[in-house]
């Protein structure tokens, strides 16, 4: 792993720091005398943040304007590479991040129609994740910010997932397609695609991915409290490991989702772990074991396991627990809004189940479009925008934090 600052053969330096386009937007800049990101006396409205994400599989960069409009969103997926190994290979991941980071950032700027001079700040994921992988993004972002004199902020990967809900789906295709998520109520929206806004706090957020099943109470920007988490396997891990046992490809989640759509969950009833009364924690390892036992039983009886039914049963069992606990958390905190986030939020069964329950309980559920659920840098740019707006700045010593917890904010200070 090299920690040296990368060279930047990007656009030539220019004294222009911001876009002097006069587009007043009273929503954003309430601070008298200027913008909290750009500084006093600067009243330009379009603030463009470059987001960089390298915490796990994906090398990603994006430019987001005003924390909402995606100008570009580039993801160099490493999944093809990992498929051969059935998982994330850290050494390969770091090397690939190093190879990808510069072209990915260049592509993000070019698709946004900007040079480096068009940027107003840089946001980078600094944890949690693999240290080697995170360091590629963090080093790059530090170098870039320092070279250009741009404000820099580190972002928690989990928090960033939640902020995917703030993004306008600028490139939504055909109004939701066959995605069951289209049935989810979205308040006040154009095309049923309204995004979350700062006025809608507080809420409960459910972040579900390969490494997480976390329930978070969000009181406002930067005020997050962990309500529950998995005690053993994450939601995505339950899918990935069961898929591995069934001999399906990696990543297992989308494959389970695809097969489940034509299976019958009632044919393979699997256990649901709700844990003690009132607990908002999760446990999915028993489910994985139940799938293994079921497969083993089929093998012993010499019959082919009905994979579609098994996937449907597995998906239903995971979804039931997630829905139940998320709505229980919303009741406990007396909030009427639930945000979904993380790669598993792309699961169609999950989206449909949340939509149905939301209608029944009169709760608003926000789900980002599928491509913003999986790891991307637009969500990082968005979360970074709101952190920069609050005056949060990375220290020069910013470093990757593999086990970064929600609510902890090392290597940052608040600027007045």
């Amino acid at each position, binding site marked *: 792993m090299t920690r040296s600052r990368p060279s930047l053969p990007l656009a030539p330096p220019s004294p222009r720091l911001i876009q002097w386009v006069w587009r007043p937007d009273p929503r954003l800049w309430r601070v008298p005398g200027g913008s909290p990101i750009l500084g006093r006396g600067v009243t330009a409205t379009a603030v463009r943040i470059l987001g960089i994400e390298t915490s796990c599989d994906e090398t990603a960069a994006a430019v987001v304007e005003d924390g909402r409009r995606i100008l570009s969103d580039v993801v160099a997926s490493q999944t093809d590479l990992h498929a051969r190994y059935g998982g994330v290979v850290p050494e390969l991941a770091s090397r690939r991040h190093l190879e990808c980071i510069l072209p990915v950032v260049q592509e993000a700027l070019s698709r946004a129609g900007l040079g480096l001079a068009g940027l107003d700040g840089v946001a980078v994921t600094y944890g949690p994740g*693999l240290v080697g992988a995170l360091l590629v993004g963090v080093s790059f972002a530090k170098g870039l910010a320092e070279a250009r004199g741009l404000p820099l902020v580190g972002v928690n990967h989990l928090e960033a997932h939640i902020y995917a809900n703030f993004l306008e789906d600028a490139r939504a295709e055909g109004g939701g397609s066959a995605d069951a998520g289209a049935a989810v109520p979205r308040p006040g929206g154009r095309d049923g695609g309204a995004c979350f806004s700062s006025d809608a706090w507080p809420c409960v957020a459910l972040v579900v991915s390969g490494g997480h099943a976390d329930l978070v109470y969000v009181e406002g920007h930067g005020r997050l409290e962990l309500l529950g988490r*998995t*005690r053993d396997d994450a939601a995505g891990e339950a899918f990935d490991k069961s898929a591995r046992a069934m001999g399906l490809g990696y990543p297992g989640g989308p494959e389970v989702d695809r097969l489940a759509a034509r299976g019958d969950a009632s044919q393979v009833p699997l256990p649901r772990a709700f844990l003690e009364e009132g607990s908002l924690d999760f446990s999915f390892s028993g489910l994985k074991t139940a799938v*293994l036992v079921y497969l083993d039983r089929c093998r012993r009886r010499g019959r082919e396991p009905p994979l579609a039914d098994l996937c449907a049963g597995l998906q239903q069992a995971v979804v039931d627990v997630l829905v139940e606990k998320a709505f229980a958390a919303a009741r406990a905190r007396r909030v009427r809004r639930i945000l979904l986030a993380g790669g598993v939020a792309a699961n169609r069964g999950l989206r449909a189940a949340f939509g149905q329950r939301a209608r029944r309980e009169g709760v608003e559920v926000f789900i980002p479009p599928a491509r913003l659920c999986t790891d991307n840098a637009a969500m990082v740019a968005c979360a970074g925008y709101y952190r920069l707006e609050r005056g949060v700045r990375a220290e020069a010593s910013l470093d990757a934090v593999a086990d970064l917890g929600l609510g902890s904010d090392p290597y940052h200070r608040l600027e007045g």
Partner: protein
Amino acid sequence: MIGLAFSLESPSPERTQDLGRRLGSLLGPGDLVALVGPLGAGKTCLAQGVLSGLGVAGPAPSPSFVLIREHRGRLPAYHFDAFRLEGPQDLQDLGYEEYFYGPGVVLVEWADRVAELLPPDHLWVELELLPERERARRVTFSARGPRSQRILEELKRICW
């Protein structure tokens, strides 16, 4: 060197965890426990017991996705998972030496995938699923050196 080995049957995940707790209470700085067995055999379950025996409070979720989780009990404890690693060379990139030869206790799930890199003296624990008994597991401990031999003698004493 392979020394003392013994095997026992745990009837349930709760008992497997309790077994781990007893083992955890015996571990000291620099000890490494290698956990081996197929998916769903109870490696994480046993590891959670060990961590609890080391005085780690709170949940200790599976490290499969993040590869390493660090905990603080009466000693530092490092919970590794080689499930997603292709082989020993991947572990090297994680800077494993700092953990394996550091002041804490190390647990390694799927240790058979990185066996070459394990320090010579470690405790090897194999978990097996038992046919037609969903909750039960066979757990086999083997000492691979004098230090782990002493731990195992003590464990055998408090388990019988």
